[in-house]
């Protein structure tokens, strides 16, 4: 069952092979095709699914006696197949079916531990969000189909700008729900923590990327973009990025935190796409190439490091039994492998050189700066948004992951949970190590990787391949310099290590308690908690976060128990969706007097209906 998935890897080598089978589905044809775009998304899907499967094999083993593990694995494979089908489908209906299979499979995986109340709620929200998204997609595809006469993607005629605009909006909402754009992201922080960790890794790592894929595909279908599309994408990206990382900063639960970071990274990717689209719109190939290459590269990178982080979090969760950050601490000594790999992942997601996260953000930056150089005022403004946005996101992400890693893995244990931590088995460790290695490799080999993106970008932007090649070669020379710099970094570090060894050789190196400014005995409860660590920033952006504090301050000369706890509800959920749903339901419940049990009135309805109709027709 587990070994099945790597077997699929062969697929991702193919460049453009298509097959169109006759299929009697009403309004559908089984038309699949693998082109570079699909391949780019297919590779992470297969890779990450394989690694996560290796991990999951061990992760789920604790449930073995409790329930039948065939079911989750069945849905796991269904999920993988669904995702593959989504990226290779070239027919609207086939796409929708694959899309729903994917959503449904992941839904059932989320509900793996269905006895827990939180899981029920999460699964409900997830199902609902998916369905809303799908509704928009249905509208999108049917509208497309009615224009084209066929639902095959390659038969779409050029269309009027207004219609294209409508379609674009439909696509943004429909795919954005899956990808987790900021107003539509509500399901993520519920579904990801609820699912088993390897599943959340796959969901967050690759499944939400299918939303991005759909968007890219839609862009290729819809033809030349007007300027407002770019601005829309860039704005959405900036908003999702910044708010995503802010909410992540305010979380106490490790996996919830990671889920919000998915929103953030989707934001970065979207900004990349926006920049690329801007390039297409201003027909400056450099911009287009940088933007799209950056965006897609970030798709791959995010798959790698987010998968790594979720798996790491899973190991912590499984061995300590809690995901609450403030209950953990000091477990790097007990689980060194996990700790190290998680550190790599945190560095990558904070976009620190020389890891892969940096490279893709670097490309997007570069694009933005180029836009700032060349374009007119609106280009400058979008450049400003992107640069400022990513810079702020970078800073905040750094804060967030110093918090996550520092508080969870460093220091001394804050509770008995953290003390009982122990390292996972080989299956888990090996998958972590693989992903961590990938983080480093993708960073160091970035020049080569970027070169390979040529025909993807030309596919999306419909620029001539040669032009894209030349652009990419310049980019990759830049990246080689980056690599050189990181080599210097490595050298410097190694050098300083040697120096330190030399200096310390033969001198006394003692162990002592932490310098505690004269306190007698520092206990683990004196440590700085994650909440307080994030507090300056959460206060600074309190406007968006609306963190609810409940304080009972210490009173009296000999203060007794005093508590402070903070809880940050999702702003969109709390201030947009819940009121809306309340309003709808109250409006509809007005209709309920219709059925209040009086037979006579029921008969009256019929008579009245008839009379009304008769009068309507005879007048």
């Amino acid at each position, binding site marked *: 069952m587990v070994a099945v998935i790597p077997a699929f890897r062969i697929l991702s080598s193919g460049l453009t092979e298509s097959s169109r089978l006759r299929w009697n589905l009403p309004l559908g044809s089984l038309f699949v095709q693998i082109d570079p775009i699909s391949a780019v998304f297919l590779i992470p899907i297969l890779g990450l699914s394989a690694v996560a499967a290796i991990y999951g094999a061990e992760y789920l083993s604790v449930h073995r006696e409790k329930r039948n593990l065939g079911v989750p694995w069945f849905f796991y494979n269904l999920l993988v197949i669904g995702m593959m089908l989504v990226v290779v489908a070239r027919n609207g209906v086939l796409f929708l079916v694959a899309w729903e299979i994917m959503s449904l499979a992941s839904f059932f995986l989320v509900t793996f531990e269905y006895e827990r109340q939180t899981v029920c709620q999460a699964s409900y929200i997830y199902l609902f969000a998916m369905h809303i998204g799908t509704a928009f997609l249905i509208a999108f595809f049917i509208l497309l189909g009615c224009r084209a006469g066929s639902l095959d993607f390659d038969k779409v005629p050029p269309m009027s700008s207004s219609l294209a605009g409508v379609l674009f909006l439909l696509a943004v909402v429909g795919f954005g729900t899956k990808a987790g754009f900021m107003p539509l992201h509500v399901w993520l922080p519920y579904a990801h923590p609820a699912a088993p960790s390897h599943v959340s890794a796959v969901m967050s790592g690759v499944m939400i990327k299918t939303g991005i894929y759909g968007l890219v595909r839609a862009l290729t279908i819809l033809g030349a973009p007007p300027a407002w599309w770019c601005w829309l994408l860039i704005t959405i990206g900036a908003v999702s990025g910044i708010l995503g990382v802010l909410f992540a900063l305010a979380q106490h639960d490790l996996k919830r935190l990671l889920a919000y970071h998915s929103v953030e990274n989707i934001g970065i990717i979207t900004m990349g796409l926006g920049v690329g689209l801007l390039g297409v719109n201003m027909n400056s190939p450099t911009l287009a190439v940088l933007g799209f290459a950056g965006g897609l590269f970030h798709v791959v990178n995010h798959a790698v490091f987010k998968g790594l982080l979720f798996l790491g979090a899973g190991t912590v969760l499984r061995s300590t039994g809690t995901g609450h950050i403030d209950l953990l601490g000091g477990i790097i000594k007990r689980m060194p492998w996990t700790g190290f790999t998680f550190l790599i992942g945190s560095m990558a997601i904070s976009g620190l050189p020389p890891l892969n996260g*940096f490279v893709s953000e670097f490309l997007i930056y570069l694009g933005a700066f180029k836009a700032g*150089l060349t374009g007119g005022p609106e280009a*400058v403004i979008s450049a400003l948004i992107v640069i400022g946005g990513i810079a702020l996101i970078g800073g905040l992400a750094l804060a967030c992951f110093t918090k996550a890693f520092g508080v969870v893995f460093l220091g001394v244990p804050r509770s008995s949970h953290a003390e009982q931590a122990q390292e996972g088995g080989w299956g888990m460790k090996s998958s972590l190590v693989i992903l961590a290695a990938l983080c480093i490799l993708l960073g160091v080999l970035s020049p080569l990787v970027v070169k390979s993106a040529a025909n993807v970008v030309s596919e999306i932007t419909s620029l001539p391949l040669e032009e894209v090649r030349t652009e990419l070669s310049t980019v990759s020379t830049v990246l080689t310099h980056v690599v050189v710099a990181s080599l210097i970094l490595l050298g410097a570090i190694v*050098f300083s290590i040697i120096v330190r060894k030399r200096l*310390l050789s033969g001198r006394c190196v003692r162990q002592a308690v932490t310098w505690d400014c004269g306190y007698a005995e520092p206990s683990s409860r004196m440590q700085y908690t994650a909440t307080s660590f994030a507090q300056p920033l959460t206060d600074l952006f309190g406007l968006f976060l609306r963190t609810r504090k409940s304080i009972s301050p210490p009173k009296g000369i000999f203060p007794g128990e005093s508590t402070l706890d903070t809880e940050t509800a999702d702003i969109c959920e709390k201030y947009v969706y819940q009121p809306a749903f309340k309003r709808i339901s109250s409006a509809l419940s007005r209709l309920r007097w219709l059925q209040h049990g009086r037979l006579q009135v029921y008969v009256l309805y019929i008579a009245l209906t008839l009379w009304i109709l008769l009068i309507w027709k005879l007048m």
Partner: protein
Amino acid sequence: MTIVLRLINPIFGLVAAPLLLGIINKTKAGFAGRTGQPLLQPYYDIWKLLHKGAVYSRSTSWVFVAGPLIGLGATVTAAALIPFGALPALVMFQGDFILLVYLFGLSRFFTVLCALDTGSSFEGMGASREVTFSALSEPAMLIGLAAVARHTSYISLSQMFLSTTSDSWLEWGPVSVLVGFALLIVLLAENCRIPVDDPNTHLELTMIHEVMVLDHGGPDFGFILYTAALKMWLLGQILVGIAVPVRSGNPWIDTSASLICMVLLAIVVGAIESSMARLKLLHVPQLLVGATTLSILALVLLPR
């Protein structure tokens, strides 16, 4: 030959960095009417520290040890990216300043982790302030550089500096002033100088950077001090590179001009430190956001 030429600049930086601290201290002493410590005191300190033993907290892990080393490495690498006067940078490419900023980020990342590794509440406090302020100063710096890039129409530090000439100043004067101020604020914040932080306060509650390194000792602490000095020097280089349009063809004149400006900068910092009081911590974010606004203004004001 060229590679040697390119190597001169970083090496020079590595050597001369602590001097700035010396100058600053001298200036402050001068303002205070003291003779003050000798100019080369920072070198002595570092030397002394390098030859001490070390004490490690029991709660720390290998991260605590790795921190200073990686910080030093990152900063040294950053030194390879910035030209000085006529001396070209060791490595130069499009968007090198992005790498620069993120290298600082890398070193900060590990400093903060070290602080958290000790498990001391004071160091955690310092760490949290550090990340807060840096998260705000990064946009200021990058947008400011974007403005410079726009009016020089280059996106590599070396080329930017080469093309900020006296007449470009005449053309973009106000913008460059805005950017200059923004960068100055960033410099002060990043190096924990007054008005953001007071390097020689002794109350842990008010410290930011100093408090994070309370537990380091011996060579590690030496590395940290040196890294701080180097960082000061590098940011100074950037500021000077943008602010000083001495571009006569003659390398000696240009380089010495920049050198003089560095000294001046140090003196200015010293002056600021001795003339201003430290801001309340709550006001620091406002200062940094102000810097960001300056940069944004600079970028938007640039006509095309």
